[in-house]
């Protein structure tokens, strides 16, 4: 099974186009035409030693949509994202991204944003953005920095930036490659609440302008409902809930419909906890649940 997946990798898709960043939007009207990569996951399995992280997970993500994947720590949501990004290989099942079976590293049309910004501290902000690209990509890198509102910090060292600014640089670094699929692995997990809301607006705007498919992994249900077209709850390596979010954008977090949806998703996430009271939840998770519950009551 495993070998079959590996051998079916099309090699020719990997390095092509890596050295040729496409022009940024606004410069060409034609860029709107493209609308991201579709993802198709069929009974995907992944084990770490004895532990089965993904148990036959199936999921379809439409081109250009924004999907949030929610779940408790260790439910396998980050693993799913790393498999899609090609950072790890599946132990079974089928994973297609776009027209090609994925699980191949270095696809320039797929970009991953990590929880920590992972900027190279010894490169200036602008050089971080054009990482892996030739000198000729400098204008594109500058445009991407302008896109995230940090053009004036181009010459600074990453150490001089705040956490939110670093994540914005990481976002610009992903965007300069003109990805068709942007994977976000809890990119705002370490940021404070106000910076998060700013980042939500930024990510939503860039998603609309660039038209890529976005997959956001998060443990923050409110964040998921605020950003995504569709919220998928993963429980024990399979899908527990697949909720469409049909709220108009920009979304008002205080609205009743928003609160109802958030409540529905949160109930699903917490249900598993209620089902298995013996399962030890970490303090952080319990605090998270409490915080979210109280936020709901206040609203």
């Amino acid at each position, binding site marked *: 099974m495993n070998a079959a997946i590996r051998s079916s990798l099309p090699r020719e898709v990997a*390095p092509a186009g*890596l050295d040729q960043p496409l022009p940024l939007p606004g410069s060409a009207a034609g860029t709107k035409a493209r609308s991201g990569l579709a993802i198709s996951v069929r009974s995907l399995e992944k084990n770490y030693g004895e532990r089965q992280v993904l148990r036959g997970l199936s999921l379809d993500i439409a081109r250009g949509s924004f999907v949030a994947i929610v779940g408790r720590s260790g439910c396998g949501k980050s693993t799913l994202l790393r498999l899609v*990004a*090609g*950072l790890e290989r599946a132990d079974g099942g089928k994973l297609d991204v776009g027209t090609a079976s994925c699980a191949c*590293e*270095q696809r*320039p049309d797929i*970009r*991953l944003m*990590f929880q*920590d910004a*992972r900027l*190279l*501290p*010894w*490169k200036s902000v602008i050089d971080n953005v054009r*990482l*892996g690209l030739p000198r000729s990509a400098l204008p594109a890198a500058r445009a991407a920095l302008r896109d995230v509102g940090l053009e004036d910090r181009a010459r600074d*060292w*990453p*150490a*001089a930036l705040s956490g939110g600014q670093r994540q914005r640089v990481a976002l610009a*670094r992903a965007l300069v*490659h003109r990805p068709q699929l942007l994977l976000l692995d809890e990119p705002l997990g370490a940021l404070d609440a106000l910076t998060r809301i700013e980042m939500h607006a930024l990510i939503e705007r860039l998603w609309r302008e660039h038209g890529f498919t976005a997959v956001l992994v998060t443990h923050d249900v409110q964040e998921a409902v605020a950003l995504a077209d569709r919220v998928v709850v993963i429980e024990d390596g399979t899908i527990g809930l697949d909720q469409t979010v049909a709220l108009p954008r920009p979304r008002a977090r205080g609205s009743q419909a928003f609160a109802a949806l958030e409540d529905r998703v949160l109930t699903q996430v917490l249900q598993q906890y209620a089902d298995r009271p013996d399962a030890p939840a970490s303090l952080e998770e319990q605090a998270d649940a409490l915080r979210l519950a109280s936020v709901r009551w206040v609203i």
Partner: protein
Amino acid sequence: MSATASSNRSWQRFGSGILPWLLPLLILAGWEHSARSGLLSTRVLPEPWAVAKAAWHLVQTGELWSNLKVSAGRAFAGLAIGGGLGLLLGLLTGLFVPAQVALDSTLQMLRNIPPLAMIPLVILWFGIDEGAKLFLVALGVFFPLYLNTFHGIRTVDRNLIEMARSYGLSGWRLYRDVILPGALPSILVGLRFSLGLMWVLLIVAETISSSSGIGYMTMNAREFLQTDVVLVGILLYALLGKIADVAAKGLERVCLRWHPSYQ
């Protein structure tokens, strides 16, 4: 109120500027006084003024420069050989696992031999020529650079490497843009250790036997009971060590200007 605060601060700045020099100056004054009053025999310790005069005399005769040149040449040639090899092997074992498996345990074993314990063997192998001095210095500086290079490469943030790979960096570009800069702080620490050891080993090598260099100058002066010249030699070593350290720090400041501790 604010005036007193600012004057307090300027006093503090003045104090922190002058305070470190106070003790050395006091010692110097006490030394001069006890030498002049006959409390301290010239054979034990000449007065500071006599040391200064001796230094000036050595400068005028050109003896100081020629010896200094010889010593510095030995030190840096030894550093280039030993340090270069250490860096090279450190890179090799850090980057390639087979090289690590083959070499590292042997090198870790050899590391535990103090270089000075090798002196009898070194004299047998190289005699008392330049070769012996170079070998001792090179041997001493090899290990700090080797260990720190190896350690630096091994402790480069795996997450950064994973990120760089996912952005299409591989091979030489991955080393140049991610692994080497990541290991550089550690490599420079190794260089500073090496510079310190370099002078220590040179002093020992030069005092065993030589016909030029600062070590020769001081040992020669000992024969003639010229304690002032001996002191000039000792102070020269201190000065050279300090210069090397300042140079290494400067190098760190240039190479690691991205590092938060240099901003």
